[in-house]
């Protein structure tokens, strides 16, 4: 069924028309990091960690939403790509809360994992954190938005999987925030149950208050610094 052929990292590979660069890479065992991509749901293209180099393109392109086209010459791990990914991860870390040692999900944190894979240390940028109080009124979900990287997975999970429409994006620019109703604290009134969104969250912004300390899967990931 391989009806489109492209060159990926110097090798000829093929896949059906309509699939994305990321999907093709996966099929060929090439691992491109992602933070906002959700298999089976429409991409948002917001984190930009999945960028790759496509010959002839002025910019890098996000692999999660760019379909393959015939003759594309793609580099998924060129020095240019890796450096761009590092900058993005450092930008996210620069506004991330920075208390990994206390974080419930430290050992399954996707942001940490991507940072480690890219060999990212302490961000080279001035630190500008977003501070929000921890929301622990709901018995199902604890929300700490200072750890949120605005990937919008929780919004999509709530809308498309749970079909509850509790979350939405609010405000603009750096102040963007996942809001509940009129920017209220997540509590029993607005979000009744389910907690479907928790495993979708790539960081510790959403966690399960009951399962405290049980999310640990392996030894802690260490960020160089």
């Amino acid at each position, binding site marked *: 069924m391989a009806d489109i052929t492209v060159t990926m990292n110097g090798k000829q590979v093929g896949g059906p028309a309509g699939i994305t660069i990321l999907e093709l890479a996966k099929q060929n065992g090439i691992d491109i990091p992602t933070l906002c991509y959700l298999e089976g749901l429409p991409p948002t293209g917001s984190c930009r960690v999945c960028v790759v180099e496509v010959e002839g393109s002025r910019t890098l392109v996000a692999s999660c939403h760019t379909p393959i086209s015939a003759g594309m010459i793609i580099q998924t791990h060129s020095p240019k790509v890796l450096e761009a990914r590092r900058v993005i991860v450092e930008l996210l870390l620069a506004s991330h809360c920075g208390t990994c040692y206390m974080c419930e999900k430290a050992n399954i944190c996707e942001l940490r994992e991507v940072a480690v894979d890219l060999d990212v240390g302490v961000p080279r940028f*001035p630190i*500008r954190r977003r501070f929000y109080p921890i929301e622990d009124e709901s018995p199902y979900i604890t929300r700490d938005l200072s750890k949120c990287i605005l990937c919008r997975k929780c919004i999509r999970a709530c809308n498309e999987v749970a079909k509850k429409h509790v979350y939405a994006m609010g*405000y603009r620019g750096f102040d963007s925030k996942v809001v509940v109703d009129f920017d209220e604290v997540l509590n029993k009134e607005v979000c009744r149950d389910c907690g479907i969104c928790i495993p979708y969250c790539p960081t510790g912004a959403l966690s399960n208050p009951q399962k405290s300390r049980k999310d640990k899967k392996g030894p802690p990931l260490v960020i160089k610094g």
Partner: protein
Amino acid sequence: MPEKRIVLKNCGVIDPRRIDTYLQQDGFKAWQKASAMTPEQVIAEVKASNLRGRGGAGFPCGLKWEGARNAPGAEKFVICNADEGEVGTFKDRYILQNDPFSLIEGLAIASHAVGARQAYIYLRGEYRFLLSQLRGAIRQAKEKGFLPHVDIEVREGSGAYICGEEMALMESIEGKRGEIRYKPPFPTTQGLWQMPTVINNVETLMNVAPIILNGAAWFNQIGTERSKGTKVLSVSGDVAKPGVYEIVLGTTLKELIVDLAGAKNIKLVQIGGATGRIVSASMLDTPLAFETMLSAGAITVFDETRDVIDIVHRTMEFLAEESCGKCSPCREGCGIIVNILERFIKGTATPKDITTLEQLSSAMMLTSLCGLGQAAPNSVVDSLKYFRSAYEERMKKVEVVAR
């Protein structure tokens, strides 16, 4: 003669509230001619004219129309981008204020060519004072029978620069947050409500009626090899005569800002507003054309008393405020650039900060989701190129400490 009036020919001549004054200036003659042509013929004429989009990217107008015409879709739309949010531009406002009819005629022709039965004019919230005159002009054109094939609706913005970007603009017309959608798919195949959509700047559409009336060959005589026609530019800042100028493409920057607008002691010029380029006084002989450095129609002049870092800092502050926040490089990066520039203003910067600025700029340009983030570091990059000493002078005096 660098000045020539094609787009602005009726400005100050007609009464923008009365269609009969427009009809006296051959108004809607082009529409009558176009409506007797097939859509394909109209597109062929616009393609042959080599008209390029005036909204910033300079994309060939005829190709865009053809793309939307040929794309499958139950409905098609034409949108006029009147969001004009770029710092230092006011030419679209001047046009809307003085000659709304030519724009409506251009929209009527575009809708005929594309096969759109619904067209929108997206007017920025700041220009609400123009709303009733614009709606009045549409009503009069309809009453006179010039809009048998299309409904033109004016939609208002509400204070968001990013809604000038075509994808965000369509989200906004759909009633949503003005956030960027990724491309592809492009608007010509999946635009407004996923239908084929043409989106053109006000000034682009203003060129359509003269092209249909006088022919592509006439239009091709004006301008440079790759930029045909005229360009309307908004000149502001340290000039004696700020205002709107229509010049033949290829006119030099010097002819515009020195000869026409009366600038003196120029230090630098920002071309294209906050996302535009910065050029130094030594580059005034550059011709203004799409192949050189023209984007949006803003020309802001700064004289020798101005501080480069302050200019770049304010530019970046603007972009940080106006970033939609969807993609991480732009949302986080703009503000971080502002913070680093503040170190230069305070005198606490180190040589490492220049490196960081360069690395961050490069990554933002390569990875951002839309033109805002991709062009946001332009002023940083250009100022580091032409005015690097301004940065170096502002660095912390390093003391050598023995360890």
